[in-house]
């Protein structure tokens, strides 16, 4: 056994990549759980191919899972990887750019045979393992397939099944590299294959073989240690964004006692919200997979009319179909939450990639003056809070509400300190009271001091009334073509949305001082990258602060004030500049955009560089 050193690291990013069939997501998930259990902070991001299962070995079929874990607080899945694990040539080809200069490559050499090289479209006769492509990287070639087969040659299992446990070898090897216990994964294997005991043994053997390979292989010069992070004591779980959204919605339903109805139509990357919700039938959740997005939202409005919590979910192209109905919900003044898990656009665009380019669609994608509150989630776990808050605003202010998340945080995950039901903010539901014939006539559009009309649900005695999309009288809600009434109604619908600013928190500076040279002003899923960049810049001595806006409409009342305390405003967005237009228009400040439109989240460095450029 050679001399193996142990290096201590604050944070490490590992990128697992291989064919869709290689069990990449599972491998990544296991490492994540194990890291979480020892108390590392973590942040993950899976990266799926657009094809379901494109031909094995091709670049189109590569699936990736990026995991960032550390002894410090983390806010992103890492800009670039320290370690790249590749199961085949295609995986290397499509991910090498994501590896840090000088990083480690762990390559399954069986995935670099002639056929795989050809499928990955490497030049005939050349292999990147030797042709200089990997100069400057630390490369560990391992014949995973061979060793796995070797390990299980006595198992009596068929080759196909044997080969499926290759990922356990890799996992074991990485556990060794990072000095991790196998216990958690062994437990997992035992549960997972409870009904197929022969697979329990085989998988555990291969896992251990991987671990022991680390011990014995000559090649590896150092192991790494990542200490537990200084995380607030408490009980944690790992949570994906879409899961957090679903749980946030159900929590709002449970806290209010309003049955949750989700009318939706599958679309990437939003479908998982439906999948999660549909499991919780015992929470009274009703999911309706409609014939299209229009039926999805209209059914949700129907449910809201019936006095329940109507939700609809989709992504950009599907949201495009909902505009007319969102306008109607605005006229109805009924609660409704519209969730857009944004993806790369325009049109069908890049369905499995991320982007923030649907903000304007949320703000303005309807005919007429049709204001709708818009809020955005900033990280996987934050989807919970954002979804809960969207429900609160919808119900308490009787309005459709847009919740924007995106593919990056929807599929990404991070640890979440488990909340208790009691910790959740109260949401008040005000159904109109039944009336007797002798009571004064019911006025379905008469507003309270929040400018909110009553929620009068069918089945309530004496409240029978009709609603519709034609302009309505200010109080009775009857159809009205009166010009003055129309203007009054347009203004009051706007005022009602503006009024919400009185019921949301003031804008805070997230990181940095209250005034200074540069304010980084961001929204949505860029949070982690911008925060990390800000910290870095401050460390380097720059006068930079970061404010992150959850409430995009209405804006927090103090936002203008806050902005004006900085000489410059820089706004990173994963689009061609949308929120920046709102800020420029509203506050007449010459904010500068930093725009990335690559279907990928920001790297910290990109933000750091931009700020330095602005300050230069």
């Amino acid at each position, binding site marked *: 056994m050679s001399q193996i050193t142990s290096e201590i690291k604050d944070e490490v990013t590992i990128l697992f990549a291989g064919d869709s069939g290689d069990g990449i997501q599972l491998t990544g998930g296991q490492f994540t759980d194990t890291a979480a259990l020892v108390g590392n902070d973590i942040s993950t991001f899976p990266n799926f191919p657009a094809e379901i299962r494109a031909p094995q070995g091709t670049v189109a079929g590569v699936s990736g899972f990026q995991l960032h874990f550390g002894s410090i607080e983390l806010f992103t899945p890492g800009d670039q990887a320290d370690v790249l694990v590749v199961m085949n040539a295609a995986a290397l080809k499509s991910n090498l750019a994501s590896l840090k200069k000088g990083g480690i490559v762990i390559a399954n050499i069986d995935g670099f045979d002639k056929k795989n090289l050809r499928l990955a479209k490497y030049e005939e006769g050349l292999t990147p393992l030797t042709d200089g492509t990997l100069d400057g990287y630390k490369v560990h070639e391992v014949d995973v397939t061979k060793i796995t087969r070797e390990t299980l040659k006595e198992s009596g299992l068929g080759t196909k099944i044997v080969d499926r446990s290759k990922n356990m070898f890799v996992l074991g090897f990485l556990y060794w590299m990072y000095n991790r216990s196998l216990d958690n994964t062994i437990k997992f294997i035992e549960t997972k294959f409870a009904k197929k005991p022969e697979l329990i043994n085989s998988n555990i053997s291969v896992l251990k073989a991987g671990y022991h390979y680390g011990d014995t292989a000559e090649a590896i010069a150092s192991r790494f240690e990542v200490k537990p992070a200084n995380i607030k004591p408490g009980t944690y779980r790992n949570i994906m964004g879409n899961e957090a959204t679903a749980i946030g919605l159900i929590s709002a339903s449970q806290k209010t006692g309003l049955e949750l109805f989700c009318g939706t139509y599958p679309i990437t990357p939003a479908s998982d919200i439906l999948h999660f919700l549909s499991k919780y039938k015992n929470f009274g959740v009703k999911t309706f997979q409609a014939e299209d997005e229009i039926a999805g939202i209209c*059914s949700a409005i129907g*449910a809201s009319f019936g006095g329940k919590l109507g939700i609809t979910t989709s992504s950009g192209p599907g949201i495009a179909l909902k505009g007319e109905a969102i306008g109607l919900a605005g006229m109805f003044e009924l609660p409704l939450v519209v969730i857009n898990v944004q993806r790369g656009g325009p049109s069908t665009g890049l369905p499995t990639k991320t982007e923030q380019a649907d903000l304007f669609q949320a703000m303005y994608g309807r005919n007429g003056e049709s204001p709708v509150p818009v809020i955005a989630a900033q990280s996987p776990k934050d989807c919970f809070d954002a979804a809960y808050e969207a429900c609160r605003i919808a119900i308490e202010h009787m309005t459709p509400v847009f919740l924007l998340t995106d593919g990056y945080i929807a599929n990404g995950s991070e640890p979440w300190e488990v909340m208790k039901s009691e910790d959740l903010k109260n949401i008040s539901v005000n159904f109109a009271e039944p009336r007797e014939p002798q009571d004064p006539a019911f006025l379905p559009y008469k507003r309270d001091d929040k400018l909110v009309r009553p929620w009068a649900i*069918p089945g309530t005695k004496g409240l029978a009334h009709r609603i519709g999309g034609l302009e309505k009288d200010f109080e009775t809600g009857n159809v009205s073509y009166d010009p003055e009434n129309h203007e009054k109604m347009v203004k009051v619908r706007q005022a009602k949305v503006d009024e919400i600013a009185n019921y949301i928190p003031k804008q805070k500076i997230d990181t940095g001082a209250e005034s200074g040279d540069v304010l980084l002003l961001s929204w949505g899923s860029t949070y982690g990258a911008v925060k990390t960049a800000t910290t870095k810049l401050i460390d380097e001595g720059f006068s930079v602060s970061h404010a992150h806006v959850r409430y995009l409409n209405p804006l927090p009342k103090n936002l203008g004030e806050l902005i004006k305390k900085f000489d410059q405003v820089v706004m990173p967005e994963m689009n061609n500049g949308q929120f920046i237009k709102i800020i420029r228009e509203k506050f007449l400040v010459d904010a500068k955009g930093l725009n990335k439109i690559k279907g990928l989240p920001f790297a910290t460095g990109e933000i750091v560089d931009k700020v330095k450029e602005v300050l230069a």
Partner: protein
Amino acid sequence: MAEVKAKKITAKDYASDQDVKWCPGCGDYSILKQVQSVCAELELNNDETVFISGIGCSSRFPYYMETYGMHSIHGRGPAFVTGLKTVRPDLNVWMITGDGDSLSIGGNHFIHLLRRNVDVNVLMFNNQIYGLTKGQYSPTSEKGKITKSTPFGSIDHPFNPLALAKGADATFIARTLDRDPKHMRPVLLEASKHKGTSLVEIYQNCNIFNDGAFFTFTEKDSKPDNTIFVEHGAPLLFGKEKQKAIILDGFTPKVVNLEDVDESELWIHDKYDKVKASILVRFFDDPREDGCLPRPFGIFYQEERPIYEAGVQAQVDKHVEAKGEPDLNTLLEGPNTWTIK
């Protein structure tokens, strides 16, 4: 209904305080009247009844009913209905739609509503025209129709709405006429009693843009020979003296003189028979053509099939039973936690 109800409920109790604004002479008035009167007969509770419509002249209907109501979006009525019924199976829901609303823009929601079999009464006002937008042809307008948008005649082959409904596996299919309130009334009653989506197509005269479209079937002279009023268990007879009958000759429906055929050959209407219904909905000849079959009215088909909202509710109930009352904290905790001390 409360037992001490002193006053008899009348159609008027279902009329809202809004002025009815259809064109004078419009067939919609007669339908409104029958629906209000059927509501009275069924003693529907105003507060537990909901009328939902799309957009069109016909879709103004809910405004005129003293019940809960929703005038929604063009063609989307079925989706609102499905959402509402899924969470509120307790309500008595009616959907009002036009031929444009349900068969043009709303065609998809319409067929999906039928296949899902949500428990709602659908009244389709078919005037073979777009009334509200002032007279363009609709998917039920006869080919060659001259309208504002087809000054030289329409080219599209029209839908046969009931054949389409049958193709979508509707569980209750009927047809009636604005000008035959006596026929309309029992059909509406049966429709409202059916558990599932009850589709009633109502031929409705638009006296402004398509006056007389159905006169062949409604006016005294032509009605007897051009219509056949089907009744469950009775043979298909028609004509002024009910002297004509329809039989199936091999696979072909044929008109014969009653006296020329043996009773055993007669086609006895059976609203539960899928095959018969499939053929019956296809009696859709152009009445201007020679040797055409009469147009049938009445209840063509009825089938018992589980209703959608009940299936949804059953799954919820089953899971509540199996897993017990929901505990939010368990949900928040999830299956896998770790603790940092």
